[in-house]
């Protein structure tokens, strides 16, 4: 398995600070493939639960991040029949409503596309080196990992 991430057969992993164009990525993902009938995307968006979020900043571990995402995606490719897999994750500063990340999966079978996307999300949440910090009311605080996110891994 590649340690580099980036482009490989059927797998694209992108880690960047800049916003990504979700509509354009969704439009071109697996476009024109006539062997893949089912495409699933998941997008994570900055939430402002309490209504006073001033911003979010995501820290990551350059080098390990791409490697971890590529390993997670490769494991999904090994478990399900997938024609294409895409993972995009941002780091740096974001505002409420901004898109943080997306995954996309394409398969001949909808159950494979759905399960692989859920698997990618469950592992990405708890095993890819990203940390969220929220600013609200002038204070900054690191988002705590949720027990339910760790527990979600048990089903795979």
């Amino acid at each position, binding site marked *: 398995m590649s340690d580099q991430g980036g482009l490989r057969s059927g797998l694209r992993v992108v880690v960047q600070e800049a916003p990504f164009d979700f509509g354009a990525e969704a439009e071109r993902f697996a476009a024109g493939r006539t062997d893949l009938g089912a495409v699933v995307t998941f997008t994570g968006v900055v939430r402002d639960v309490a209504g006073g979020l001033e911003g979010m900043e995501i820290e990551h*571990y350059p080098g390990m991040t791409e490697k971890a995402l590529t390993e997670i995606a490769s494991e999904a490719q090994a478990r399900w029949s997938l024609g294409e897999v895409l993972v995009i994750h941002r780091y740096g500063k974001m505002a409420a409503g901004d898109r943080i990340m997306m995954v996309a999966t394409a398969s001949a079978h909808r159950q494979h596309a759905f399960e692989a996307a859920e698997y990618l999300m469950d592992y990405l*949440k708890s*095993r890819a080196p990203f940390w969220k910090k929220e600013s609200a009311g002038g204070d900054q605080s690191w988002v*705590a990992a949720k027990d339910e996110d760790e527990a979600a891994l048990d089903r795979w």
Partner: protein
Amino acid sequence: MIDVLYFAWVRERIGLPKEKIETSAATVAALVEELKAREERYEAAFADLSALRVAVDQELTDFDAPLAGAREVAFFPPMTGG
């Protein structure tokens, strides 16, 4: 010499993102003990290991992982991506 990296609140408590450490610690746990013995800020950062995760050469591992041949060790809280 080994590169030791800190992320998120571990980085903030220790006060720097990265340092080179001269160590002959056999395991991650032994390295943590050496660091805790150094200064208060390490003691504070490593007070509760159950709240920490560790990667050796960019692979997640356990605190009892060996350090022989390792170039890079990173300490950080549980991840919160997605």
